[in-house]
């Protein structure tokens, strides 16, 4: 191992560590999946990544890429040791090309910082995960993340035009061109999006950007039960309205939101749907009015917010996933079964099933998420020192995953498979489709050094 350390130092200088303390900091993400790396390396260029992969290929050293480590499925956990490639140091916005509606960035660029850079031009990168302020573009691409505005704007997949990727043997390829559309050969760009570092290491990305909307408005609709709220969402979409965000917050979530910001004027006596609409002054006014009209017959209350109040509600919403401990400091939110998704019309059924599962197991749960695209985040929280609660948690997560699949849905809408959900992938996609994935993996990484063990591959 000392020789490997020396060789890594020759490639990246002092940007490699083998100290026990540093390695301890890179065991994983926010999931329960952990693995101790032998080395942490922080490359600064594509050529360094290429040399590192060649070295790893020669010595059969596992390589696990990592952005900000904000994932929720163990995607960056080095479960077979080896090298963690911390890509967050490659964080330059290389080109802002407004005329072509594109940017070229390194993978370590933090999504929010990209948006700060685009703000003066009146443009933005629309995918909007809750971790926008810290997650990196490379991580977002690798897990096809999306977030609150995907209901209108789509997921990261819709915005990636070209990737520079270092393959397992150190070769460097580009998957696309600087064009908004292309019909030339297999779509390698989309192959690498969501591949979780199992097929190559992304070192550069060309992304499509969009103009910022002139106006946003938020409709807060409060319902007696989450199921009734889910039905209202279906009616909104059936009426041809596409909100720019459509989020559900159950009673527990609302309590936590209040703890994050005591001044928030949100109802607490029901389940709330936040419908955001964006566009022009008149189009948002009209859409907000229509949403209010559709919700009113079944809602306990409906009102419209905008400006600073709307910003405060969204800011608190971003925090809520990790904030459950504020409700009960003896309990910790554990990210398991947290990212299921179903066809929109099955949302009420999913909510009902999740309620039944958690009630039966007597495990507290907070339900929130991007209900507009069928994605429900279930936050289970337990006393992590209590073994019995761990058992219940695992059982609940498994049942939630299976419930989503039974409803024709997915075990992960935007957080990825990693290792946390690997066991479900063959069942969800089918054994034949899974064997195609295995063949692709084998073709691109024959020695199995890239993020081994992930996605069940």
């Amino acid at each position, binding site marked *: 191992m000392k020789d490997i350390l020396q060789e890594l130092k020759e490639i990246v200088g002092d940007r490699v560590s083998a100290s026990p303390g540093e390695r301890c*900091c890179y065991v994983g993400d926010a999931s329960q999946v952990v693995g101790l790396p032998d080395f942490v390396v922080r490359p600064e260029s594509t050529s360094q990544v290429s040399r590192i992969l060649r070295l790893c290929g020669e010595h059969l050293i596992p390589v696990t890429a990592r952005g900000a480590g904000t994932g929720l499925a163990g995607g960056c956990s080095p479960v077979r040791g080896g090298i963690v490639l911390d890509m967050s140091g490659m964080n330059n916005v290389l080109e802002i090309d407004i005329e072509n509606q594109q940017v070229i960035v390194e993978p370590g660029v933090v999504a929010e910082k990209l948006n700060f850079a685009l703000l003066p031009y009146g443009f933005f990168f629309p995918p909007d995960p809750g971790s926008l302020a810290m997650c990196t573009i490379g991580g977002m691409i690798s897990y096809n993340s999306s977030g609150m505005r995907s209901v209108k704007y789509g997921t990261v997949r819709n915005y990636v035009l070209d990737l520079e990727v270092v393959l397992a043997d150190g070769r460097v390829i580009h998957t696309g061109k600087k064009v908004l559309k292309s019909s030339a050969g297999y779509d390698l760009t989309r192959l690498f999006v969501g591949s979780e570092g199992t097929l190559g290491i992304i070192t550069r990305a060309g992304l499509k950007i969009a103009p910022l909307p002139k106006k946003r408005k938020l409709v807060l609709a409060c319902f007696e039960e989450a199921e009734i709220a889910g039905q209202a969402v279906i009616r909104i979409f059936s009426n041809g309205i596409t909100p720019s965000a459509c989020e559900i917050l159950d009673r527990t979530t609302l309590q936590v939101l209040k703890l994050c910001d005591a001044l928030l004027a949100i109802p607490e006596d029901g389940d709330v749907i936040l419908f955001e609409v964006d566009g022009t002054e008149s189009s948002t006014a009209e859409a907000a009015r229509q949403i209010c009209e559709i919700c009113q017959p079944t809602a306990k209350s409906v009102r419209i917010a905008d400006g600073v109040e709307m910003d405060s509600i969204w800011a608190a919403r971003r925090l809520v*996933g990790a904030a459950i401990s504020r409700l009960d*400091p003896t309990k910790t939110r554990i990210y398991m079964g947290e990212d299921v998704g179903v066809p929109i019309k099955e949302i009420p059924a999913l909510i009902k099933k999740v309620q039944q599962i958690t009630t039966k197991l007597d495990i507290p749960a907070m339900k929130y998420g991007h209900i507009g695209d069928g994605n429900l985040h279930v936050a289970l929280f337990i006393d992590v020192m209590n073994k019995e609660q761990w058992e219940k948690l695992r059982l609940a997560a498994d049942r939630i995953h299976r419930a989503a699949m039974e409803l024709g849905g997915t075990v992960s809408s935007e957080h990825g498979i990693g290792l946390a959900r690997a066991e479900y992938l063959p069942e969800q996609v089918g054994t034949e489709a899974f064997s195609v994935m295995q063949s692709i993996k084998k073709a691109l990484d024959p020695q199995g050094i890239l993020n081994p063990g992930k996605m069940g591959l």
Partner: protein
Amino acid sequence: MNLDLLAINQCVRCGTCRTFCPVFEQSGWESANTRGRIMILKGLTSGLQPDSQVLDSLNSCTTCGICTENCPAGVNPPEMIESARRQLVSTGAMTPQQADLCRNIFASGNTFGDARDRLSWLTDRSLLTKKADYVYFAGCMNSYRYTETAANTFALLHRFGATMLPKEQCCGSPLMRTGFDARRFVDENCRQIARTGAGTVITGCAGCYTTLKKSYPQDFRVLSVPEFLAERISEIDIEPLDLTVTYHDPCHLGRHNQIYEQPRQVIEAICRLKEMKTSGKAARCCGGGGGVRAGYKDLSLKMAKRRLEDVPVGVDYIVTSCPLCVRNLRDAGAGEKVIDLVDLVAMAIR
């Protein structure tokens, strides 16, 4: 190690702190970020050995508290880190810089190991009355490095009946922040304060303030100079100055004690205030606290340089109310443009 597992487990490793930690901003290594430090604490409870890299991780935290302010899970990392430092020190695990700092303070009663009289700047000792309503607690930095600020502060406070301790000792803050027992100094300062009969202790150092307020027996009221001045500014004969200044919030006045408005009230009574790019609860740390300046000077100054990028254009002075911040920001390149709030008041006094 017997660390607070409940607090450690409260961290969900979401990584929000990566956006805010000023040390991580300079370093880029996860061990220099709050989340990494908490993972190291967890490691220490299960066999990780406190080698020099682990000590550097835990000791390079400025305890600025911006992670606490922004942590969605409500974790208080500075408290956890200080607790870990105490336990490590109790087992003899410390950096050479920590050991030097401790030796200096125990040898001389001040952080510099300076054998000179702490009150050398005070020419008229008759001003030190034995009994008084207020005690001005100068602190090590102002006593030895910024004696003009100490003199200006005492001149102001003496008008309201303040005295000083004849043999003031280090408040103990540097010891407590870096994991050492400071009871000897707490007891000695308390004994002298009691002798004056004062009900209120006023200090111009943010580090002394938070220590006197939170780690001393609650036998007297503790006020920072900005709090006192904000209450009494109307009683001081000042002349408005044609200046524009900005204000740097010291972490131990702001985030640790919510003193945001008072210094601004004083400034606005004198001149124009233009806020820094980040201010109040969101103010970026100068990098000087938590023992970081003493232990990791280069890192500390890099943070100070970064803080100076927040200074708005067109200001005459960068005003603050902590001598540690004054030193770090001056040494990072701002020089004499950085002044204490009291120095601004002194300029305005007719």
